[in-house]
């Protein structure tokens, strides 16, 4: 093992290695094949040449047909990786995700299952505006039968993608446009990060920040700043957003006695609300302060001028931690 990989390379390698190991793994989505340049974000670059056009299928702009085909192929025992170019476009294929991918195992009494991955990209901060930027993980977290995964770094992206492909249930794999260029030490071939297991990205004793994806980087920066003020922050990177690793989250908060949830998605009804509720239910008597939540503004994502006002800022996060730490009962 030597050198580094980008998050893009991590995803590409995970898919490549999975396709080499298992003939039933295949990709489908808009622009994903070699003729189209290997995808808008190049995740499937170089794979058509190796695996052919049946296994890297460039599709028409037909999200319902794309996800539906992934569901059907998965029912037949294949492991499709479908791509919805940008997360907001799930609005046109929700039925296939929510009524079919998520429910067919249960409704069939376990006779069938849907081992598919739905890859999708999103993210605030690059000026894509109101219909190309939303983090919509909470929509899916509300549906039984779906796993939702996102990576905060390149090595995890590789390991989580491989585990998602090998998972026997449908996985929504969320990528963040801004994170594609992040680099990690190369974790090597066949790297896997188990689904459902959070990582303690930074250990601390005063307050836990529970987050995932792009905002893990923000949390790390804020933790450094607060360290100078004498506040010791622990960071929990969920990696699997749903169903999330309650054990690790609760253990961290039991230790620190304080928690701040952080996500780029809008704050109301977000995953932070669910975790906050759970922490209060389980640890009320041990908490030194009420759980604080930080999230995006409750408005559509604006165009460039207002984007940084919309996005949860590092100063907001730092303030939330200070509020928790300075809480007087």
């Amino acid at each position: 093992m030597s050198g580094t990989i980008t998050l893009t390379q991590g995803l590409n390698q995970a898919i490549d290695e999975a396709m080499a190991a298992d003939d039933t793994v295949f990709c489908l989505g808009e622009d994903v094949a070699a003729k189209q340049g290997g995808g808008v974000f190049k995740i499937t670059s170089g794979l058509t040449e190796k695996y052919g056009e049946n296994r890297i299928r460039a599709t028409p702009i037909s999200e319902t047909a794309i996800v539906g085909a992934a569901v059907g192929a998965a029912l037949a025992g294949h492991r499709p990786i479908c791509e919805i170019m940008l997360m907001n476009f799930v609005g046109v294929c929700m039925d296939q995700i929510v009524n079919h991918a998520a429910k067919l195992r249960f409704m069939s009494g376990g006779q069938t299952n849907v081992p598919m991955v739905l890859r999708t990209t999103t993210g605030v901060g690059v000026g894509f505006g109101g219909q190309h930027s939303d983090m919509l993980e909470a929509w899916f977290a509300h549906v039984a039968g779906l796993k939702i995964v996102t990576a905060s770094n390149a090595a995890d992206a590789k390991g989580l993608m491989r585990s998602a492909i090998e998972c026997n249930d449908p996985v929504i794999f969320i990528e963040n446009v801004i994170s594609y260029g992040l680099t990690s030490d190369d974790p090597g071939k066949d790297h896997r990060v188990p689904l459902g297991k959070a990582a303690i990205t930074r250990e601390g004793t005063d307050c836990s920040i529970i987050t995932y994806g792009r905002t893990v980087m923000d949390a790390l920066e804020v933790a450094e700043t607060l360290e100078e003020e004498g506040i010791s922050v622990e960071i929990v990177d969920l990696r699997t957003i749903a169903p999330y690793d309650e054990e690790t989250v609760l253990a961290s908060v039991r230790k620190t006695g304080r928690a701040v949830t952080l996500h780029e998605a809008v704050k109301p009804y977000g995953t932070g609300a669910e975790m906050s509720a759970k922490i209060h239910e389980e640890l009320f008597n041990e908490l030194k302060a009420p759980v604080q939540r930080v999230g995006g503004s409750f408005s559509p994502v604006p165009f460039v001028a207002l984007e940084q006002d919309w996005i949860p800022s590092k100063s907001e996060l730092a303030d939330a931690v200070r509020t928790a730490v300075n809480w007087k009962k």
Partner: protein
Amino acid sequence: MTDQAIDRDKLLDIYTRTTKVNRTDERFRELLMQGKIAVMYYCVRGQEVVSASAMAALNDDDYVVCTYRGQGEQTAKGVPMEAYWAECLGKATGTCKGKGGTMHITHPETGVMVTTGVVGSGLPIANGLAMASQNSGDGKVTIVTFGDGAANIGGFHEAMNMAQLYKLPIVFVCINNRYGEHTAYADHTDSVNIASRAEGYGMRSAHVDGTYVEQVYPAIQEAVDRARAGDGPTLVEAMCYRMQGHFFGSDFSYMPPEHIEEMNAEDCMPKLRNYMLEAQFTEAELDAIIADVDGQLDVAVQAALDAPFPDASELRKDVFEEEIAA
């Protein structure tokens, strides 16, 4: 199409399948009427020959995707009667352990992969099954059935285009019963028929009278054979009638008297019976098939009535591969 288009063995096979569908429908309505069972049931009276012919055109391990009104495809494809009835009554011994119900019968062993309750959602999924067959070269064909109303949902358009683009081994069977819930065809669609839409996708199509076995079976069999040979998909539109309300017990006073008169005159069951007699099958032979099916139904229904309901712990199972902790 000539009478010779269907050989005697196949004809007998279709008759047997049709009888299963028809007697199952009759039994369902009888039990519901008597109040012995109380579940949602979408009657298939008037469509039996289409479903039976379509399933008779498939191999045992070929795939089927159907709808809430899928009893015909399910029983004709061979879902075991006991497991079928148990599922319909929500019992633990059902195909889906009683967790799917009448609208979600699944039985992969007989190729019944999905029964969807969402109009038009089966088509994109059926493409995926066909795509898996195309990728692996397993030689299977997928049939997806759907109604006339379903031809107006976006997924129909997306799925038709995609299937033709990739030349998938699939047959789209539109069971045009001339109504979508309470809305007559002419009030939801101005296309002369659904089959004509295939041309816009570059797809082959057939438009047949589904009340005549000699029309519908050869059309679907040809489409299946072409799909299996790698010659791509076909849209087959089979005209028929929904001779009951949208679901059991629902009102159908909105059907004009002329329509009701027409559908009674065009009933596929007496037409099939006559066709069989013309093909030199005897009344006694045919009655024996009916009696045999009725006997199987007696056993299956009783077993389903006697079977236990699923345990509440089932709520935590099959959500994911791993059971959810209590």
